[in-house]
């Protein structure tokens, strides 16, 4: 990875973590546009059988062990941001076109 790429990662990730961990704590707790619309239309209750979410350590955007406050939210923001980034960097590595000079585990073209 070039220094250029590394700086992009560091600056962008720092901004994302600051927003996810700190700024989001001051977010509005009101229902979002869709939830409010569903409430106003009298359509806020589910009418179909849905699929249950898997049991996880997070209760919405709060880490369960930390209750409801700043740190529970910050843990969710940091964990979620890192999870998304990790998933995408992993996918990016899988999708990256293989160059002949770096294809270490493929058969060498000269030895077949």
């Amino acid at each position, binding site marked *: *990875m070039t220094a*250029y*790429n*590394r700086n*992009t990662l560091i600056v*962008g*990730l720092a*901004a*994302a*973590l600051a*927003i*996810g961990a700190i*700024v*989001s704590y*001051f*977010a*509005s707790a*009101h*229902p*979002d*546009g*869709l939830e*409010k*619309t*569903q409430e*106003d*239309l*009298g*359509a806020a209750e*589910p*009418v*179909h*059988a*849905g*699929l*249950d*979410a898997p049991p*996880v350590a*997070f*209760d*919405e*955007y709060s880490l369960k062990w930390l209750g409801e406050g700043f740190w529970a939210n910050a843990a*969710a*923001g940091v*964990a*979620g*941001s*890192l*999870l*998304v*980034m*990790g*998933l*995408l*960097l992993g*996918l*990016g590595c899988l*999708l*990256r*076109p293989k160059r002949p000079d770096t294809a270490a585990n493929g058969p060498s073209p000269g030895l077949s």
Partner: protein
Amino acid sequence: MHIGSGFLSPPVWGTMAAASGAALAASLAIAGRRLDERKVPLMGVMGAFVFAAQMVNFPVLAGTSGHLGGGFLLGVLLGAPLGIIVMASILVVQSLVFQDGGIEALGANIFVMGVIPCLLGAAVRRLWMRPKTRLLGDVVTFVGGTVAVLAGATVVILLLAWSESLPGTVTLAHALGVMDAVHLVIGIVEGLVSVAVIRFVLAARREAAFGAASLGVGEGVR
């Protein structure tokens, strides 16, 4: 704008899962064929950024909040295939780990917040790949970001109506009016944030996002 669990009927969520699944498969196939390596860090960081930004609900009208969608922005910065891949990753994490958006509604949510806005963003992308279209780029991006949110909001209401999740007394026109009025305000914020972030990336990492041609090298350098 995440559709929760239990609001879509099986035929509706099945259809939307198939549509988004096809879009995602096509995106992965295109990305697999011609992925610019420099875009991988940008993808990861933008994914983290949009995830975090979506946690920040801002007040809209009385008793209502909104948050950034981010799909339009990703469509402009990364193009449609990579944008759709990033939005799908975010929405998968949100629904599986944070119970934000129903599991069965994931396809619908990827379509509404990923496929639609990413395609609209990608249509605007070309404007930013040229060295000198800043004001036009700003205006079109602002309007496009707003339209992308309104388009998504409209489709959500259509899906809810199709699923018979709206009371019989509510007309479709009324439901669309309520939904789109709120999302016009949210969309305006989306448009403004999209312009601001694109301007920032333009200043910091223009080549990684828009290619070397957008630098206009050769005009300024003598």
